[in-house]
């Protein structure tokens, strides 16, 4: 027997997972410090520590293998999207049509403004359209996480959740259509231009619907034991997410629609622990760290002013677009301003859409893709703070920290 039989080989072979585990500890500690001392949302710490330690920053942690990273993000995002969907009451749109009006106006304005700015800067109209569709999205991850963490409730919170869900749907659908047009211009045949978005939307809707009925059946038979049900739900969300990827559907659309459908069909109130239990919560934290690790600010080197311009223009668009119908829809100016500000964050959904485009169009990846990546990183870090401030200003968070 020699030393090498039972002692580790030197230098140690350290897997990235070990670093990630350590980062989890550090990130959570940092998040806690931010809350205690600066009263900032914890997610800023999670994303921030990932960005600082990751390949884009000090480089302590190597780039994660794409597949594993993607799985964590998909699962955590699936949980957050389902959570979002299950908090949104679609019947409200019928009772208050001004909400649908506000949402459509806000999404259209955002699209139109970003599109115009890019076209004015000599970007091709299809590429401008792709970026503009991504800009519609409000980050469901940041919204759900911040609302959960701040325990906000009230009109602005309710509307924020509703409009975030709708924006995610618009962004995914119109992004697919814009990409289809891009393919058409790249010389893909008509059938292969038209079929992908149809398959994606139809297939995602079908999968979401199947999820909805199964969920209702299981809930009916299983009854009220909250924890058991959380486990099953967790499994179902993972299954649906992976199934959607396997079938090359949109996991984003499937999980969000599944949440909306179960909320629409439900006969009983349901309360779940945040993120469906601690396993879900850990995944969510990992996702934010992973997002930080993937942070890529190289786009700022060449396009700093462009990124800044796009960020400012998008904030103004979202803010102004929620104002005109505010009083008709039953909220005051102050609340409308809070709502507009809270709609600003961008994160995982925008990131995934950008990466999907980049895979198909390498020239996009090195041009506007880089701009988008930097744009997303900035709004990922600033977003949670904006949402928290907006909800606090709207008077919808508990008055004192307990």
């Amino acid at each position, binding site marked *: 027997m020699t030393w090498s039989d039972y002692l580790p080989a030197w230098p140690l072979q350290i897997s990235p997972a070990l670093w990630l585990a350590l980062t989890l500890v550090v990130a959570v500690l940092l998040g806690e410090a931010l809350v205690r001392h600066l009263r900032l949302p914890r997610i800023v710490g999670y994303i921030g520590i990932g960005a600082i330690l990751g390949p884009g920053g000090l480089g302590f942690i190597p780039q994660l293998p794409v597949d594993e990273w993607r799985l964590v993000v998909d699962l955590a995002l699936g949980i957050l999207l389902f959570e979002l969907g299950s*908090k949104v*009451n679609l019947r*409200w749109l019928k*009772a*208050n049509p001004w909400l649908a009006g506000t949402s459509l106006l806000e999404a259209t304005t955002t699209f139109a403004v970003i599109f115009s700015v890019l076209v004015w800067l000599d970007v091709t109209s299809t590429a401008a359209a792709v970026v503009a569709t991504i800009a519609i999205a409000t980050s469901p991850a940041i919204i759900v996480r911040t609302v959960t963490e701040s*325990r906000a*409730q*009230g*009109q602005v919170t*309710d509307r924020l959740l509703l409009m975030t869900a709708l924006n995610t749907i618009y962004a995914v659908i119109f992004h697919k259509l814009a990409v289809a047009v891009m393919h058409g211009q790249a010389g893909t045949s008509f059938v292969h231009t038209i079929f992908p978005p149809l398959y994606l939307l139809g297939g995602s809707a079908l999968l979401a619907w199947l999820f909805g009925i199964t969920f209702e059946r299981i809930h009916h038979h299983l*009854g*009220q034991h909250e924890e058991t049900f959380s486990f099953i739900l967790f499994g179902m969300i993972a299954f649906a997410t992976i199934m959607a990827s396997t079938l090359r559907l949109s996991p984003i659309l499937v999980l969000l629609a599944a949440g909306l459908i179960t909320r629409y069909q439900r006969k*009983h*109130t349901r*309360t779940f622990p945040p993120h469906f239990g601690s396993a879900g919560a850990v995944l969510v934290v990992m996702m934010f760290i992973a997002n930080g690790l993937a942070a890529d600010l190289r786009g700022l080197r060449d396009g700093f002013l462009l990124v800044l311009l796009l960020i400012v223009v998008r904030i103004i668009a979202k803010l102004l677009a929620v104002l005109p119908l505010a009083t008709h829809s*039953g*909220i*005051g100016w102050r609340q409308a301003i809070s709502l507009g500000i809270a709609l600003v964050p961008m994160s995982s959904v925008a990131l995934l859409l950008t990466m999907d485009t980049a895979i198909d169009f390498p020239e996009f990846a090195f041009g506007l893709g880089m701009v988008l990546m930097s744009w997303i990183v900035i709004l990922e870090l600033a977003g949670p703070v904006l949402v928290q401030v907006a909800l606090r200003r709207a*008077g*919808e968070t*508990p*008055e*004192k920290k*307990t």
Partner: protein
Amino acid sequence: MSLMPFAPSRPLSIGVELELQLLGCNDYNLAPSAPEILRRVAKRTHPGEIKPEMTRSMIEINTSVQQEYAGLVTELRALRDVVSDAGRFLNVAVAGGGTHPFQHWSEQKISDAPRFHYLSELYGYLAKQFTIFGQHVHLGCPGPDEALHLMHMLSRYIPHFIALSASSPFVQGHDTGFASARLNSVFSFPLSGRAPFVLRWNDFEKFFAKMAGTGVIESMKDFYWDIRPKPEFGTIEVRVCDTPLTVEIAAAIACYIQAMSRYIMVEQRMAPEEDDYLVYTFNRFQACRFGLEGVFIDPRTHQQRSIREDIMEMLEHVSDHARELRAVEAMERIREILIVGNGTSWQRRAYASEHNLADVMQLQAELWMGN
């Protein structure tokens, strides 16, 4: 500040105030939506008044002065519909019931008005604990002495009103075992309880002046009594009822009090005695704790019976008066409560079948809003 003179009012006219719960449609917890609801209802014409209350997840509806059951119930339904429509527009559910079954008092937000901020300063967490929902019934009195007479005579029947309206068994996530746990929150206020045994208005004015002189109170509003005179309206105000689960029951209970008052003033014609109050807190506790099954001790005969039986007998006494007041339908509803039970029994049945307080609250909101 001295006491206002007792304004004239039409004898036996009635007015009802109901405090309502505003709930989020996802978890059916209390939601701080009163400002938006008030802004919304301000755009619609409606009878009576709709007002803010202590915390922002409460709202109060007030009827105008009514003479009989039909008018009262019509107006309450109109008010209910205006508030419910505003609720649907804002994704807010509205419900009756004396307590919210699982709200956390520390999460409640004080309404933005000087009086509410003052009370919140003064009472501290009691103000937030005061997120409870009651029904107040005003009764017109021919004059101030008659008002005091009626107030003391009605005190004997306080357990009736508590047991009939009781709809607050659940507090902070648990069944308290009480039929009306709401009143336990009222008792923690220093000036709760009953009015002093004073039968003439000028003696009452002296009492008020002495109390005001000590600096303990500034106005009648500072007394949280079970029944108190309201001189500016020329009424006495019965304040022990929980907000029932429907407006129809609220109207019926108001008319039961009205019919009983007519019986007291026209037929019974007995003088109140200070010793009537010997059994007061015992009877009241029995009503809060056990509802219609509670024990009722007659202060004069010392006879014991259930509150249900005492109400049954009272219904016999007041039936002619109820006919005069065109409140026969209201008395039928009271009789129905004696058979099927009060709000508390409805809530306990709902919990037994749903196993979930949020579901109970959802059903309660559906019952109130009528959808």
